[in-house]
């Protein structure tokens, strides 16, 4: 990883020296946080061992922008964070894309870039997120594994382990970055655009690379019918599984590339004066094998063919933000969100059952600009898994962020 980062810097500064202009900026996010007794990174982003009140450096980002030539530019982001374990990870390259703009209405990019799908993809920096956590569809891990497919025990009906061993599950829409090539065509400036990306995996993929012949396609049509209204319609389809010792034998007769995710969504922003209402809804369909009792489920006992399951889930969030004009630099925000799992027809038992329990989360946030480049934000979230008693003090979080931009 260190070699990769060094190579990145070498490439960046070499190209930067040749470029007409090179700009480096950054973001540092300090955080003080605590979580409920049942906190878990894959449910509320706070690892259970770190649920007690503590201070951390959540993220350190460096952004790079270089004009390589008149119509060529480079965008990069190197990120250090505590994602996953709660401990500082090795630096990683989140964004590294070259863009060619033949004219002001068309741009073509290649590399690791921001996914065209949805709204949150453009708001994932903590400085741009109104809250501290990602929405459930982006941050809540469900019982679909890139190595196992449908893995019921990983869901709310099963038991998560302590997080020390990777269970390999993913979110409905992971990370909001894609690797591949994309095109943004502005059909009518500030009115309508189309973005299409050909990628190396579906949006559920947790890895920037893949060891299978995976492929995906992502598209979004964005429209702005009025200044106060932006709407997007997105779709993504592709394969997402990864080769592992766990699925190597099964793969012989069951190409893992055949298991796919379809994601369809719409997003919106309504804004005027000091108010903003925004959100998105997305529906996901999965065609996956099932992993139960330590093995893949087959069509029948003697068959080498894996049984395919079709699962669907739905999720969405609505954010409401107000900037009180009498307290310049401040805002208050409220988020309501839900992820739900629709029942599926089990092809073996013929029973119609739910494949996981839905989750509802409510969040409030208050933010204040201490100066143009220093933001203070505090958020409180509480989430309930369907069937939980109201008195269960499980997945709440309190997170206070000090965001420094430079």
């Amino acid at each position, binding site marked *: 990883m260190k070699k990769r980062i060094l190579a990145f810097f070498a490439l960046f500064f070499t190209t930067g020296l040749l470029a007409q*202009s090179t*700009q480096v*900026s*950054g*973001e540092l996010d300090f955080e003080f946080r605590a979580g409920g007794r049942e906190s878990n990174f894959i449910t509320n982003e706070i690892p259970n061992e770190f649920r007690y009140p503590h201070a951390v450096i959540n993220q350190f*980002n460096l*952004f790079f*922008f270089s*004009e390589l030539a008149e119509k060529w*530019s480079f*965008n990069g*982001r190197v990120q250090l964070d505590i994602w996953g374990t709660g401990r500082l990870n090795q630096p990683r390259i989140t*964004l590294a*894309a070259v*863009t060619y*703009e033949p004219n*002001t*209405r068309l*741009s073509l990019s290649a590399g690791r*870039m*921001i996914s*065209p799908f949805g709204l949150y993809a*453009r*708001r*994932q*920096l903590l*400085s*741009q997120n109104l809250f501290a956590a990602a929405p459930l569809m982006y941050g809540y891990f469900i019982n679909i594994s890139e190595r196992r497919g449908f893995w019921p025990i990983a869901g709310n009906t099963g038991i998560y382990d302590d997080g020390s061993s990777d269970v390999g599950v993913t979110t409905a829409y992971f990370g909001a970055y894609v690797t591949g090539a994309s095109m*943004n065509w*502005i059909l009518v*400036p*500030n*009115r*309508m*655009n189309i*973005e299409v990306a050909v990628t190396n995996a579906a949006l559920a993929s947790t890895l920037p690379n893949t060891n299978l012949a995976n492929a995906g396609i992502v598209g*979004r049509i*964005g429209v*702005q019918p009025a*200044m*106060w209204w*932006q709407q997007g319609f997105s779709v993504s389809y592709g394969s997402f599984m990864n080769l592992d010792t766990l699925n190597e034998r099964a793969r012989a007769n069951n190409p893992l590339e055949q298991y796919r995710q379809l994601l369809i969504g719409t997003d919106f922003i309504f*804004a*005027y*004066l*000091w108010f*903003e209402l925004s959100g998105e809804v997305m529906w996901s369909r999965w065609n996956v094998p099932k992993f139960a009792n330590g093995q893949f489920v087959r069509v029948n006992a003697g068959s080498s063919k894996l049984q395919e399951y079709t699962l669907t889930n739905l999720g969405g969030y609505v954010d409401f933000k107000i*900037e009180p*004009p009498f307290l*310049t*630099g401040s805002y208050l925000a409220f988020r309501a969100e839900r992820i739900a799992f629709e029942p599926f027809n089990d092809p073996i038992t013929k029973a119609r059952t739910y494949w996981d329990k839905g989750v509802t989360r409510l969040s409030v946030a208050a933010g204040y*600009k201490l*100066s*143009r480049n220093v933001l203070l934000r505090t958020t409180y979230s509480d989430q309930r898994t369907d069937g939980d008693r109201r008195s269960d003090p499980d997945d709440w979080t309190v997170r206070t962020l000090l965001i420094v*931009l430079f």
Partner: protein
Amino acid sequence: MKPNFLQVTLALTVLCFSNLPIAFGQTAELKGKITLSVPKVSQRLARGQAYRNRLAPEKPMESKAMSSSAYADVVVSAHPISFKPKLQPLTKNRTIDQRDATFIPRVLPVTQGTVVQFINNDPFYHNVFSLTPGNEFNIGRRMRGEVVQKKIGERKIEGLGEVKLFCDIHTQMNAVILSLDTPYFTKPDANGNYSLKDLPEGRYEVRVYHPDLMPVIEKMELKGSVEKDFTLSR
């Protein structure tokens, strides 16, 4: 009724000790050339620019302000020390236009208490806010063509009188309203030449300001025609 001797004496005394130069019509001119050590300050792009709205081009649009004179953002002001000038808000409202995701002009000098109006001429939202102590405001998102007025500098601003403006939606956008405690100020022409005419003679603090460069502040006696060049650097 004719004024008596005492009234005439009092009036003359006041004139002598307060606005002597004005009373006798003795004015000075300060002129010269401004040199910028940096030919043109490049515009800093939005932080994390890749995360911006996709309905507009990747790179910021070239605007009139960005391509105008390098001296457009320079203000030369003369602040009287030896007398107190008569200070009034500018009667004609001054305007800051938002066009092509840029504030035009980027630097607007006004006298304290002047009403400045903001107009969004882009087909997308801007949000003008200021966090300058005593002059905090946030006009929110405004529709195209909507005019919003703000009185600037009612409360004295420390330092050079900068009221810094930003847009919450386009982080690269910034501008400065210079709220000045003097009516004597100007901007240089496209070649950097400036001229402050009809200054009452006296002692002044002359300031040369650019938002991206170190200000030059010099005290000087102004009498007759004074020629003075300034160089601004980082």
